[in-house]
């Protein structure tokens, strides 16, 4: 199964590398959103607001990027994969791919956001750890929800309706963890929240692994 996983992952990464459609469109979305925020806020002095806006932008960027993970595949291609690969390999490769994509997006978002709206981060490693763990949890949850939503007809709205309530637990942990990191706490003190995020990621991936086979069959 690992070979299938790697193969599927390579396929997705290569596709993306050649066209770069998803990455650039999301980046454009992020730049536009950050710029609008800049026009509205100019410079955000309050740390909590800075943090909140950063995560809001990242949440919607993630929904847009991971939400498309399954809708790009056509019906026929899906049948093709069905013959060749195990469902577990498919879902895991999608989750890994989305996580990598979201990591790239979130790092670039962080850079662009700091560029325009100031940077309040003191302990970069700590904050980035929160960002990476947090966006990974978004990717996991959104990949599984996208697999569910792609089975229905009205994808876009349903995707948002299904995903936003499910993202909220992750969001609450992330906001607490990132606030603590911005206040200057060490990673050890933030341990509970960081561990919580890690557990959430593992849990979501495990659920995707177990449940995807049921979504898969037609």
């Amino acid at each position, binding site marked *: 199964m690992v070979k299938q996983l790697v193969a599927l992952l390579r396929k997705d990464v290569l596709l993306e590398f050649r066209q770069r459609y998803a990455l650039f469109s999301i980046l454009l979305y992020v730049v536009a959103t950050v710029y609008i925020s800049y026009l509205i806020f100019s410079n955000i002095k309050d740390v909590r607001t800075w943090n909140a806006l950063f995560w809001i932008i990242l949440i919607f960027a993630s929904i847009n990027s991971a939400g498309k993970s399954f809708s790009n595949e056509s019906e026929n291609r899906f049948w093709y994969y069905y013959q060749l690969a195990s469902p577990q390999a498919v879902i895991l490769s999608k989750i890994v791919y989305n996580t990598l994509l979201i990591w790239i997006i979130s790092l670039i978002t962080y850079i662009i956001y700091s560029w325009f709206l100031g940077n309040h981060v003191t302990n970069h490693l700590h904050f980035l750890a929160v960002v990476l763990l947090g966006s990974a949890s978004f990717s996991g*949850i959104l990949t*599984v*929800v996208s697999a*569910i939503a792609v*089975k*229905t*007809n*009205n994808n876009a709205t*349903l995707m948002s*309706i*299904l995903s*936003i*309530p*499910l993202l*909220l*637990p992750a969001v*609450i*942990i992330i906001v*607490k963890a990132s606030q603590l990191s911005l206040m200057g706490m060490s990673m050890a003190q933030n341990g*509970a*929240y960081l561990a*919580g995020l890690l557990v*959430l990621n593992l*849990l*979501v991936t495990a*659920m995707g692994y177990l*449940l995807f086979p*049921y*979504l898969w069959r037609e």
Partner: protein
Amino acid sequence: MKKNWWKVLAIVLILYSLIAGFLGDVPRRDILNESIRNLYFHVAMWFAMIAMMGASLGYSIKYLSGNHLNIDARANLFAEMGLVFSILGITTGSIWAKFTWGAFWTNDAKLNGTAITILIYLAYFILRGSLDDREKRARISAVYNVFAFVLMIVFIGILPRLTDSLHPGNGGNPAFSQYDLDTNMRWVFYPAVVGWILFGIWVSGIRYRLYSIKESLDQWRNDSSDQLH
């Protein structure tokens, strides 16, 4: 009577909680005063909701391993019953909050959890509504049910432990502490919970029978119209 003893039990337990709820002794607590009796009613709604959602989850899992549409109908009905309990819980909680905490809604971990639970299950019903093929609807919504339930448990169970809360006895631990569940109250509270759970099962059972009658009629209508043609 042999089949219906549990319905009688439901009535007896709820009636008992209603009477003892008002006449019984309760601990005297500041801020809460007499409204601490709300424990028997408001909190019982939440426990009943969890039981209903748990039943719905059970039937969803059973469907995934069996694929009988009746099982899916039960999962749906229990989720609906759970939603009813949750709406009752959230409105009664809101009113209680207005009188004790001063506002209808606050930024409290438990309240967030309940709001999100309601959103999650509303999304479940919207998902069901958007799928027409019955088998597909049952399967996809069962997957969502399992996924969402696990996340919900994480949220309701784990998060309140990580943060402070206005809820009595919480500020680290969402389970009841000595602070607000007096031994006397236990004697009325647990029977109330069991009573309301049985009540939920009763109502869902009636609705299930109505569903199955409708199914039979539809099938009969289809069969007879096939015969005519």
